[in-house]
């Protein structure tokens, strides 16, 4: 444990709270279907930001912003499909009123390990993701269990902590009602949800397998590295590409 002057400890306690609040806000934004705001609200404006997901890296501000924007578009498209399925309840609603209908996302983050650099300019955090969500598919709403990790490098900008690099990894992402790692039950397609066939997330800037979703003979897969104390960012590893 580092020996610091109490004034320095107090500042770092505030910073650690700020970082936990930032991750808590992201979790809350997923709950209220505000994923489309995550880049604008929490990410650094640096050119070298990047987001890693299982399928690869979104590199640079445009790619990261587009990723979250696509989540927003999926939410809106999903709601319109649900509207088609339940016209008696949802017909005539504005887009604003309709947004978020039929979808839920509960993505709590916990078990934090946070290290702030001795120079106070950057920080690193690792968090468990342990949640559940549903997705509107061409077969209608389907629910999933999700276990994974969020690992981020944070940077202090104008007195506020922002995300610089982040890995958002799905370890077990499984349809509810399915033993982990096994083929889920397939449901018949439903006409009202046919438009979901056209939705695609943008391709990662750099395709790479950062993590494979669990399967029954997958090699043992660990979380991203746990942060260790460090002096300055050059002395530690990066959660970026």
């Amino acid at each position: 444990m580092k020996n610091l002057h109490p004034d320095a400890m107090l500042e770092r306690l505030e910073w650690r709270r700020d970082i936990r609040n930032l991750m808590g806000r992201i979790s809350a934004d997923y709950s209220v279907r505000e994923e489309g705001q995550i880049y604008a609200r929490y990410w650094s404006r640096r050119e070298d930001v990047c987001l890693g997901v299982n399928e690869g890296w979104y590199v640079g501000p445009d790619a990261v912003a587009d990723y979250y924007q696509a989540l927003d578009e999926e939410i809106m498209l999903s709601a319109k499909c649900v509207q088609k399925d339940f016209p008696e309840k949802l017909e005539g609603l504005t887009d604003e009123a309709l947004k978020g209908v039929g979808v839920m996302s509960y993505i709590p983050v916990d078990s934090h390990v946070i290290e702030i650099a001795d120079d106070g300019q950057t920080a690193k955090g690792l968090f468990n993701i342990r949640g559940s969500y549903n997705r509107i598919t061409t077969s209608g709403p389907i629910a999933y269990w999700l276990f994974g990790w969020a690992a981020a490098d944070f940077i202090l900008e104008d007195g506020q902590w922002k995300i610089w690099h982040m890995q958002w990894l799905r370890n077990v992402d499984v349809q509810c009602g399915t033993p982990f790692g096994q083929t889920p039950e397939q449901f018949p397609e439903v006409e009202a949800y046919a438009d979901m066939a056209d939705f695609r997330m943008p391709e990662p800037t750099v395709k790479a397998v950062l993590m494979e979703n669990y399967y029954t003979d997958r090699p043992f897969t660990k979380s991203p590295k746990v942060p260790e104390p460090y002096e300055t960012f050059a002395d530690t590893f990066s959660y970026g590409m």
Partner: protein
Amino acid sequence: MYKENRKLFTDDEYIVRMWEKEYIQDLVARFMYAWSNGERREALENCWVRKTHNRRDASWGENNGFYVGYDEVVRHFVAEYEDECKADLKAFQDARPEKGYTGADLGLGKTLLHDCTTPLLYIADDGQTARYLCYDVGMESTGKPDGSSESFFEVGLCFIELIKEGDDWRIWHLVYEHDFSMEAGKDYGSLPRILSPEDDAVFTRHHGTPTKASDVYNDLYGWEYIYWDMPAPYKTYEEEEGYGPRGKIGKKYYDRII
């Protein structure tokens, strides 16, 4: 009574104690990541007590008793897990030799998550020990050579007693009160509410054979004990109040009456 006699701290002392609480929360999370990552030996070496006299007294509690002493904790937490992983890997190698599992790392087909949510934490007034409680709401899945898996939502409570060694906090006593293993992919409404011997074998599969067997926690009717064992403000470590094998944790109410 405790409130009236509670020690008052200076501002600086309060800040240091807040800092130490943050450090302890991170330490427990580090332990949980190492546990989930199969780095169990490292988890003990990095997060648990190192001084000889503390290691002699270190303990790990399961529902069915205590593993007492660091070597016994290693036997249960590390060796038994490694044996299980070796058996799982051998099953793959024997059943599917064409798949080239030879040389695969331990843990093939396995994934697990342990975490520490909703922590409750008090540092003793004397600053030498701390008591911590969290929920471990996780999961475990073990793949089988036939392509199936045994996967469970795993829920338990972790009572942890920490002790300061020099400037560092270390885990000294841990009691994992295992509430349930709920099989994933099943209709939960049809799962048994009273465990059959077969179901119980699933539930107890990681409990092992403790050094000192005792009924530490019975998930069917043990709830009333949690309140009394929860961390609360305290002045200094007393063995009978602690989370070690000679403490009250898990004891029936009639065994707690002195």
